């Protein structure tokens, strides 16, 4: 990926970061359910 301006860089990295954050927001509650589903 080639960047010519700071704006290009920020748009790219922020875009990827938001996708990662979205994936984490979905994953973490599911992981919590996996960890606790056998609790008494």
């Amino acid at each position, binding site marked *: *990926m080639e960047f010519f301006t700071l704006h290009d*860089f920020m748009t*790219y*990295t*922020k875009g*990827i*970061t938001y996708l*990662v*954050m979205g994936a*984490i927001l979905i*994953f*973490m509650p599911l*992981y*919590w359910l*996996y*960890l*606790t*589903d*056998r609790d008494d």
Partner: protein
Amino acid sequence: MAHEEPKYQWVTPFNMITAIVLFIGLILTILRFTQGIGGVTNLDNNNPWGMWIGFDLLCGVALAAGGYVTSSACYVFGLKRYHSAVRPAILTAFLGYALVVFALHYDVGRPWKLPYPIFVSQGTSSLLFEVGLCVFLYLTVLFVETTPAAFEWLGFKKMRTWVVRLTLVLTIFGVILSTLHQSSLGALFMIAPSKLHPLWYSGYLHVYFFISSMFAGMSMVIFEGSMAHRWLHHKMDATHLSESTGVALGFGKAASFVMMGYVGIKVIGLAVDNNWHYLTTGWGAWYLLELIGFVLFPAILYSVGAREKNLTFVRIASLWTVLGIVLNRLNISLVAFNWHLPAADRYVPSFMEVGTTIFIVFLGITAYRVITARMPILHEHPDYKEEH
């Protein structure tokens, strides 16, 4: 106590090794304070911080986080089922921080100047000042939190009652101080973006240090609990023995969740700085070994152990995580620091630095054994059994 106390054996292999290590450590201490720092270390202008900072201080502080994690779980979040883990965790934290300050003398020298940054010449704009102030205050808090066990042992009932009344205030103060200095130790390295490899350098370094201190502390409580269960079994009463499984499984589950979150924010760090291309290099392989091999893998091991109620998995994961924390702190302070320097200029600790570090670790183990053999740390004092 639950068991008849066996007659103490002074001559054991472990005691012999301890005696040898402590003797060599004393010689190294004399050498350090008579020959100067250059006489015993491989430190130079490129690497002014070596193993004593990387291991004794950074790992020592991270692994002593069990104190604030356990006491806040019990007293702030009201998880009283972890009460039996509080005193061992507080003692470990107190000894950990005391040894951090002790080890710092070897690096800094001039022990009589220790109070200067706090009482004489405050560098209020410096992160090191904040770390120093927090460690000074938190060590005081941990000392006060340790005193009830000493007062019970000495029979000072009134003083013990007064200190126990302060428990919640001390716990909250301890959490605040830990939040500050655990993160600040990471933030110290943000001053050197050109020296630290981009995979480890991040604008979120302080967040990484604080979050990782949580699961470091929980793992240390589990690891130390399993060691106590194995070697100090006769010092534990029925309550401590019966609660130890619940502590290990509960902390294992919590550590697993926090570790997954840590992996998540590490990936966010890669995305924010667009460092993906470094992952295909040799440094990337080392970074992935740290993140996948020593964070993600033990997190999964913890989760399986907690779900299946498998203590062996949880205990292995705790040791694995402790090693991972050591690897992470050494990577940031030594391995990935000055990564661009030619091999001839890279820092490798001298055998005397390693010897001093081993001496300090053994000093901590010896102090823990001496205290737990006398004070009600792994068992309740018979006069106060009804209080919990």
